[in-house]
């Protein structure tokens, strides 16, 4: 796989596995899952577009990080939500213009999710897909990503457990994704984002060429 272009978006699939759910695929590490999401936001916000399925526990966390970094949440993040869960949306969702709603298929949750996932993965050209913890939905999203036209770098964070661990084994991904627990440094490396790459308030302010985004803290003469 070649170098990441720096213009494609990051797809995020994350969740804490619930042992009672029928989609359960193995124990997750909830502390690692939260820490990994937080590190991903730290590394990527204001630098790459992020897309995910509007997980209601993660969305408010992203507002908070985006606010602290002074980047425009609506511009950098796009969520997809199926109307099947409409009673469950955080009330603030409506405030932002970055949510794509997909139709519910009657009261069939799995089918409604499938419609949402297909649109979510079909709409955007991704550079990278990051998988953290999770259950069978992760595998479904992986299959859709794999079937998409562009080559996408797959990053299953095995140390967070759950379906991400199974996916890591299945695709024989980098052993570092199982061993490295410093997620900030891991994501810089895996997403190929230079720590000196500036964050921009909105995607439209970001130069196309990565070289034009680099600002090195001035060193001694």
């Amino acid at each position: 796989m070649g170098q990441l272009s720096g213009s494609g978006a990051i797809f995020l699939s994350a969740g804490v596995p619930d042992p009672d759910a029928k989609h359960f695929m193995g124990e997750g590490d909830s502390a690692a899952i939260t820490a990994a999401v937080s590190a991903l936001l730290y590394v990527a916000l204001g630098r790459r577009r992020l897309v995910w399925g509007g997980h209601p526990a993660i969305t408010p966390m992203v507002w908070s990080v985006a606010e602290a970094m002074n980047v425009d949440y609506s511009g950098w993040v796009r969520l997809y939500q199926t109307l099947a869960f409409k009673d469950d949306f955080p009330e603030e969702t409506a405030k932002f213009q970055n949510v794509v709603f997909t139709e519910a298929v009657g009261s069939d949750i799995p089918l409604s999710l499938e419609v949402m996932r297909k649109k979510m993965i079909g709409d955007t050209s991704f550079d990278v897909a990051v998988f953290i913890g999770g259950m069978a939905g992760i595998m479904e999203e992986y299959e859709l990503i794999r079937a998409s036209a562009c080559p996408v770098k797959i990053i299953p964070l095995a140390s967070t457990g759950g379906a991400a661990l199974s996916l890591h084994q299945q695709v024989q991904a980098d052993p570092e994704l199982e061993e490295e627990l410093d997620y900030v440094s891991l994501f810089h490396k895996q997403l190929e984002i230079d720590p000196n790459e500036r964050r921009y308030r909105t995607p439209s302010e970001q130069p196309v060429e990565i070289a034009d985004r680099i600002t090195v803290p001035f060193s001694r003469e």
Partner: protein
Amino acid sequence: MAFYELLILGKPEKWQMAALADRLTEAAQVFDLDVPSQLAWRSADQASHRERKAATAAVFFGGDLDADGELVAELQADEIPVIPVVAAGTSFNDQVPDALRSTNGYFIPDGDDQLEALAAVLLESVGLLHEQRRVFVSYRRTESREVAVQLHDLLSARNFDVFLDTHDIRPGKPFQEMLWHRLVDCDLVIVLDTPDYFGSKWTTQEFGRALAKGIHILRLIWPGHAPSRHLSLADSIPLSGLDFTPDNRLTAASIGHIVQRAERLRSRSIATRHLEIAGKLRLEIERIGGRFEGIGAHRSISLSLPSGRRVWAYPAVGIPTADILNDVQSKAEKAVTKGFPLLIYDHVGIRDAWLDHLKWLDTHISAVRALRVMDAAWELVAWDN
């Protein structure tokens, strides 16, 4: 799988090993931790059996410059504190290998054969001092008061400082500032997720801010209640009717299991929160061509600036306050090697008014500087010039 891992490296004398083991056994009793399944200490030859995800710290007894070199390098790469220890009156540089010379160490005072203070330094690094064991219990009074009180009593008996959040705040109202600070200073929040919890307690936004601040949540899901998806990043324990006694309390077996899960999640929380701030700081110092030398006593991080100047960064994982600045200053004064002290914090999840207050403190206190980890590279390079 131990929750807390302590490693004893270098060249300890027999009596030192024995004294330290006695002190750690006492601590385990105070906190009601099983040895070694919950609190483990290991010598270098056993270190490979450690649980890598647990809250971990090491001491290195000086004397043999060639001891445990690979292991020290591995721990340093994992951003685990390795505290060099030498006897008072001996030369630090003669006793301690190169890799640890820049790390904040500890001198054993003359005639100290109990090693109480050394054990405290080691335990502090994994959050096992009484004043560090803070847990926040959030519940709805009308629905789960009995269980909240029961948890309070049981956790207090294990030397936790338990904060019972009894204030019912109406949705949409801002979370009270002091309550928020109290929460962020805890390593663990236990939420009693009852049917009306979200109707009257925190808003989803407040949970988002807590998660962004690295707070980990243990959620107890009440029987028959479909748990809210807004809390689905929490470590969850579903309860059934069988977990309750007729007077609405939890059975001994059930509450024992909960306390165990709470301790485990707390140790993970300590490990991940420290690793996150250390990881961010490492990145920043490397951006300017400086060096991240290692983590030592009081979790102080030794940094070399491009000019060769040494600074000590003391990470604050919760809300930085004037008290913490003061504490950093006094620790820096007692440090074996002198260097300018910095308080490093992550500003995510801290309100603007408090950040302004910190800026004000920073301009009025000259003995310590408070820096946001995200701006550390720019600030340090400017300062080094």
